């Protein structure tokens, strides 16, 4: 199956979304990513985030907020933040952003044992994926998603599902 841009995703598609797309939309570095989220919010597309994506996104937005506020330096930001629980307690924007994704209509898909121990392992064996990527793909396959939305080049050779990626990154 081919890999095409986000504007080409057919209406009504069930889309499994990778973390990077959400970060590009949040940072306004891809109009395609923002239009994609807009279409999800309008019900034209069904967007679903695997559990691993929710976790990764929350983690990265938490770091972004701490960086934006000058509360941690850039090198090893997670390590620095982990040693400052008082800083974490004082952050709130990242939670509002994550909750906004729920509010705008994105769905959540928990991982099943079969995702983790069967399909993900098969995808690791077939494509050489690391754990997180293989679990995202495993969830997409279980949900019979029409589209996997990711800018991760690792997915470009995937044959089980159509992969769409943004072609307009400004960074």
């Amino acid at each position: 199956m081919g890999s095409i841009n986000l504007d080409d995703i057919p209406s009504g598609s069930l889309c499994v979304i990778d973390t990077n797309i959400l970060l590009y939309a949040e940072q306004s570095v891809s109009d395609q990513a923002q239009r994609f989220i807009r279409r999800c919010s309008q019900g034209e597309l069904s967007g679903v985030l695997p559990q691993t994506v929710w976790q990764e996104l929350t983690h990265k937005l938490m770091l972004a907020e701490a960086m934006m506020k000058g509360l941690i330096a850039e090198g090893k930001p997670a390590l620095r933040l982990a040693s400052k629980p008082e800083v974490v307690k004082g952050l709130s924007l990242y939670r509002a952003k994550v909750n906004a994704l729920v509010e705008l209509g994105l769905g959540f898909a928990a991982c099943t044992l079969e995702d983790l121990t069967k399909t993900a392992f098969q995808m690791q064996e077939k494509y050489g994926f690391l754990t997180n990527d293989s679990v995202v793909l495993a969830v997409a396959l279980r949900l019979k998603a029409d589209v996997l939305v990711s800018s991760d080049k690792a997915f470009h050779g995937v044959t089980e599902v159509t992969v769409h990626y943004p072609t307009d990154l400004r960074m």
Partner: protein
Amino acid sequence: MKRKVGTLLEEDVLRKAKRRAVDEGRPLSDLIQDALETYLSSKSSDPVKRDAAYHLFCDRPMKLTTAQFKAVLEEDAWDL
């Protein structure tokens, strides 16, 4: 903890669900639970709220330098 429930479904919907469950080799109850979870996780159906949520997420970016954003992108949550 799972509980037994009784409800009514359209015959056609039930037939499709049973067929899908057979295709996927899992119990019908699992399939119905997945479908319900996906539906319920879409919390808001109010277009005004959805629009406001979109603007909060996409129109008010966290102010990061390019280097900071790249650091966030490259951050590995397990790399602690």
